[in-house]
């Protein structure tokens, strides 16, 4: 009898209850560290915004047809998204499997690696979508005019944040030690962050660099946020959303692969 009852339907992949379980864990944990996390995710991009806004802003008042403060204020949304997704994903994932062994505990429950990675990325993406709005709100305090398109900014941040979260999880999955992250930060994240068009337009870059920028998901995020705030550019923006979605889906699968290798012997 017990057997008949217990066999039942085979549990599927990406079950809602498994995702919820992992998300609840993150949400409950967040209640214990939200202050420090909110502090770093908001103060950092704000400093960039103020430094560039007042630094460059005193030299150039308008750039690419925008007030410079508006230009940087919208551009640093992508920076905030990156800082609150790729970095916590890299370090948090590493700490959770290596030091806290949290993932060992979760995988002993009815949760598969695919569900674990997906839920972690969803959580980080949601946070990144929210924290991404901070520079825009700060820019509003400095005179950025409100617009309806701003309501799309958290969503753009969420899509980009999901990809960067998966990117960070993948790096943590393949990294042998904490020190490995230095290579990724220096060789990958810093160039992508500077060549995104957050602080200066890429129009004056050589042609090849502009083509390359289209492979930078952060660049699409920057442009989409600006267009959301100042006016959409039709199909081209839709293509950029598509590019972010493809990036997210690809690194999602990579992250699952990396973590399965790491967590399952």
């Amino acid at each position, binding site marked *: 009898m017990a057997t008949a009852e217990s066999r039942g339907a*085979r549990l599927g992949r990406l079950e809602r209850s498994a995702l919820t379980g992992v998300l609840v864990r993150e949400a409950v944990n967040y209640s214990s560290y939200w202050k420090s996390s909110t502090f770093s995710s908001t103060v950092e991009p704000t400093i960039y915004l103020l430094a560039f806004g007042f630094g460059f802003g005193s030299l150039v008042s308008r750039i690419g047809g925008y007030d410079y403060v508006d230009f940087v204020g919208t551009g640093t949304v992508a920076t905030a998204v990156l800082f609150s997704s790729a970095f916590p994903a890299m370090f948090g994932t590493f700490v959770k499997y290596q030091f806290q062994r949290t993932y060992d*505990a979760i995988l002993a*429950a*009815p*949760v598969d690696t695919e569900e674990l990675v997906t839920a972690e990325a969803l959580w980080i993406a949601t946070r990144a979508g929210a924290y991404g709005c901070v520079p825009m709100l700060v820019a509003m305090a400095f005179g950025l005019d409100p617009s309806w398109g701003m309501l799309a900014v958290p969503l753009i941040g969420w899509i980009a944040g999901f990809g960067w979260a998966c990117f960070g999880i993948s790096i943590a999955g393949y990294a042998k030690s904490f020190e490995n992250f230095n290579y990724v930060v220096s060789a990958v994240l810093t160039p992508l962050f500077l060549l995104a068009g957050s602080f200066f337009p890429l129009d004056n870059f050589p042609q090849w660099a502009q083509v390359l920028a289209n492979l930078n998901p952060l660049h699409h995020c920057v442009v989409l946020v600006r267009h959301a705030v100042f006016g959409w550019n039709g199909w081209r923006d839709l293509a950029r959303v598509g590019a972010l979605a493809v990036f997210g889906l690809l690194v999602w699968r990579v992250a699952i692969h990396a973590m399965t290798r790491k967590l399952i*012997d």
Partner: protein
Amino acid sequence: MSGELAIRLRGVVKRYGSITAVDHLDLDVPEGTCVGLLGPNGAGKSTTMRLLTAQAIADEGELEVLGFKLPEESKQARAQCGVVPQLDNLDTTLTVEQNLLVFAHLYRISRSERRAAIERALVMAKLVDRRDSRVDKLSGGMRRRLLIARALVHRPRLALFDEPTVGLDPQVRQELWALIDALRTEGTTILMSTHYIEEAQRLADTVLIMSHGSAVAAGPPSDLVLEHAGHEVLEVYGPPARLAEVEAEAGAAGMRTRRTGTSISILGVDGSNGFSIDGERRPANLEDVFVLLTGEEIA
């Protein structure tokens, strides 16, 4: 439902590169019993535990847990298992109650039953009045109890304990034994790995002794003792040279011996009349069997 197997392993092999951690292991855990997996460090106990939750995937062999085939149906099996890991992996910045709440979700306890399940777990772990304490403020014993309660919050049919009392002082160990014993009395099936012989002897209905990845003996502790070490053991103390002499003498008489560090134990002396070495007679125990079967040398 007696006779049903909660765990059934046949010919299970798990290799890590050139090392074979589990080597053609057969293991039966009948429902409602407590089985002890006994072996020295490195015998493959922890790997076996990881295989049972599909956190390690076997290279060969058949694995069934609660009637589910592993690794394909592992998630169903895990839904009805509770795992107490060797290393504490509680969320240390959360409170006792929050830790239980998280696992009530992970183990899919329905909303209407969640509250009651958490209360029951708090009572079991004797942590009702520490429910709001952060885990990093708890003593080692309390953390262990919480780790166990967390694994049992959903009333699993099968509990897997990996070295449940390793590194704890005797008082805490006894407290945990009482907890595990109560669980056993309730009818939960238990598989427990340990290298503490006393733990296995006290709690396990049957013991499986592992060495180098495979089972070297299995059965109720008392049967194993009788079979491998007889009723009585002669314990002879003396300087090393004397011990070597005694060892040779007993070996020549066809007796089995084992070293204890300070003495030599001559096993199964019950029937041997005329064996004239002076020493202390004592009942044979599981430790005699353990050392005899898993070897005296530490690899």
